């Protein structure tokens, strides 16, 4: 079975890439693209609101207010929601770059959140050192959860799309078990864990808001990943494998199995970190619905950013705003919040269609010369 490359990118070696530092046109192009996508998202939303017979004006006002209406809305609603989307989006884009269709960020995120909850139990002994421990636990658990799918892919040829989706369901039900079993709060009334120790909670980075350290982590990891993919030999190998595994193996003598497995595990680790950061930065306790599908939205984030880590950060903020706004829309205008996932899915499809249209016109131009 052939699995097509998702990216269809042209590979630039680090040596070629290094000379050309970030060109202004690239940045302008990226911003323009973001602007167009944001506009398309709003247009789609307006169309959907209108055909479903909502009070479009009220809904849009609620959306804008909820997303960017105040300093508090920007920092504590939009940016806080952008954190798990950015981290999970980076996880997805890293895997997709290597040609691995990891649809399992959701499950890896849940595994990370559960592991972080366990690690937070050590807070009385470790004090503030519990924070690095629980973040590391999240990474390890996410990588391990992805590792199951990586193993099945490598050793038994199981399509990772199906295995990661199955693992998402297993993770969801396992968290459901944990919060009714070993991790349940001591009164045994609610299906959720105890609140984690204050010493295990991520510090806030802007006083008076809810924006936590996870945001800074996401930005740092995004920039690091961007630099690594662009300038380092490892990043080059990963992109080469993703673009054409057979060519990478024969022409580049790249160990494809090793590269894809490492990328898969790293992707899981970042998604696990997203879960740990969400737990210790936002919810402070574990429950089944700790992720309203961040791992799935992350796929839209990664694709809209064309798998570019810097783009992922931008797309995550955009989707964070969209989801924060949708939440306000449901609260203030009675519009079902799930409408946003329709917008997200349509955006993915439009981006796919636009990319296909572009490659086709490029090919036609090449054919005619």
């Amino acid at each position: 079975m052939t699995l097509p490359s998702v990216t269809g990118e042209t590979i630039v070696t680090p040596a070629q890439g290094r000379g050309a530092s970030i060109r202004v046109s690239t940045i302008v192009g990226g911003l323009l693209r973001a602007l167009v996508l944001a506009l398309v998202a709003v247009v789609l939303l307006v169309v959907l609101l209108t055909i479903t017979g909502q009070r479009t004006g009220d809904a849009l006002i609620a959306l804008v207010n909820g997303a960017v209406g105040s300093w508090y809305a920007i920092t504590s609603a939009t940016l806080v929601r952008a954190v798990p989307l950015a981290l999970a989006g980076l996880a997805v884009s890293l895997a997709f770059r290597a040609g691995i269709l990891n649809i399992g960020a959701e499950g890896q995120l849940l595994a990370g959140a559960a592991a972080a909850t366990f690690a937070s139990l050590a807070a009385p002994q470790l004090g503030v050192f519990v924070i690095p421990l629980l973040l590391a636990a999240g990474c390890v658990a996410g990588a391990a959860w992805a590792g199951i799918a990586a193993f099945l892919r490598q050793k038994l040829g199981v399509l990772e799309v199906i295995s990661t989706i199955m693992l998402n369901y297993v993770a969801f039900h396992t968290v459901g078990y944990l919060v009714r079993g070993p991790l349940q709060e001591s009164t045994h009334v609610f299906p959720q864990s105890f609140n984690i120790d204050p010493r295990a909670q991520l510090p806030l980075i802007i006083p008076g808001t809810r924006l936590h350290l996870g945001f800074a982590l996401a930005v740092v990891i995004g920039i690091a990943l961007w630099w690594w993919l662009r300038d380092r030999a490892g990043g080059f190998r990963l992109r080469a494998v993703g673009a054409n595994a057979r060519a990478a193996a024969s022409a580049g003598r790249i160990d494809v199995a090793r590269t894809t497995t490492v990328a898969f595990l790293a992707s899981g680790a970042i998604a696990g970190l997203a879960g740990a950061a969400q737990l210790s930065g936002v919810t402070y306790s574990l429950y089944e619905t700790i992720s309203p599908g961040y791992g799935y939205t992350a796929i839209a984030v990664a694709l809209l950013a064309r798998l570019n880590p810097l783009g992922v950060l931008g797309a995550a903020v955009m989707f964070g705003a969209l989801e924060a706004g949708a939440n306000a829309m449901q609260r203030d205008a009675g519009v079902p919040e799930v409408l946003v996932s329709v917008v997200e899915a349509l955006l993915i499809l439009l981006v796919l269609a636009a990319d296909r249209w572009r490659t086709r016109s490029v090919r036609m131009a090449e054919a005619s010369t």
Partner: protein
Amino acid sequence: MIDAFLEATIRWATPFALAALGECVSERAGVINIGLEGSIIAGALGATIGAGVFGPTVGFAAGALSGVLIATFFGVFAVALRSDQIITGTAITMFSLGATGTLYRLIYGAAGVSLSTPTTGVFAVPVLSSIPVIGLALFVQPPITYVLYFAIAGVAWWLSRTQAGLALRAVGERPEAAAAAGVNVRRVQFGAVVFAGAMAGLAGATLVLAQAGTFVENMSAGRGFIAIAIVVLGRWRPLGVAAASLLFGAAYTLQNLFQSLGLAGVPYNLFLAVPYVLTLIVLSLSRSGTSSPAALGQKEIVSR
């Protein structure tokens, strides 16, 4: 005891077999439709609406039609535009889960309102239903299960014995050769995707009209993805797919049995995870090897 177990197994296996049979045809034509889950949930909502107004029979038709609608959407992107099949399918599933959730809340009010839909009862086939052991299991079922029997036989015959079936298999194995022989590859693939959508829509309708008697958001619960695994386990053959579905029917039966027995102290969540773990095990044990259609997932007609 054993006949009750077999009866429940076939009842639970029916939606899996319906969806997997459709996916089987789609994959034999070279298209892997990850959007199957989307067609199932659309079928479930379509059936709820249709049955609420006109009764169960119209409900099934509305379910199939809703599944077709979502599959057509998938086909436009994945077949006509040749976008990546897997990403497109994932997006289509996201779209369908979001759209059904939105529509459900708009039509039936806020989530949590309990809603009951007319369901089809069981129909005992005269004479056959009194066969010992298997009579009850095979012939005292809701009508949709009998439709399934005919569909399995029909698809098996059509794929292996007709000119059109041969053309479809050629498209999935060697699209360039099929195209050279005058087969319209995209039309065949689009047709196969639409058929898969109809079957998945029927599967969704079955969940509502022959099992739950109500619609719940996300009630498809990954059945579309499990159906894709069933196709692998069934070696891309209709009869194999039907047999593989029985395994999942049995798993759901046991899961419900254990849940109702309430095994001391074991939370029900662990049982809920069983079908998904089973899918992983099944995929690990079944090597796709040479039985997988050669051009499965391939974007371009003319390769290399």
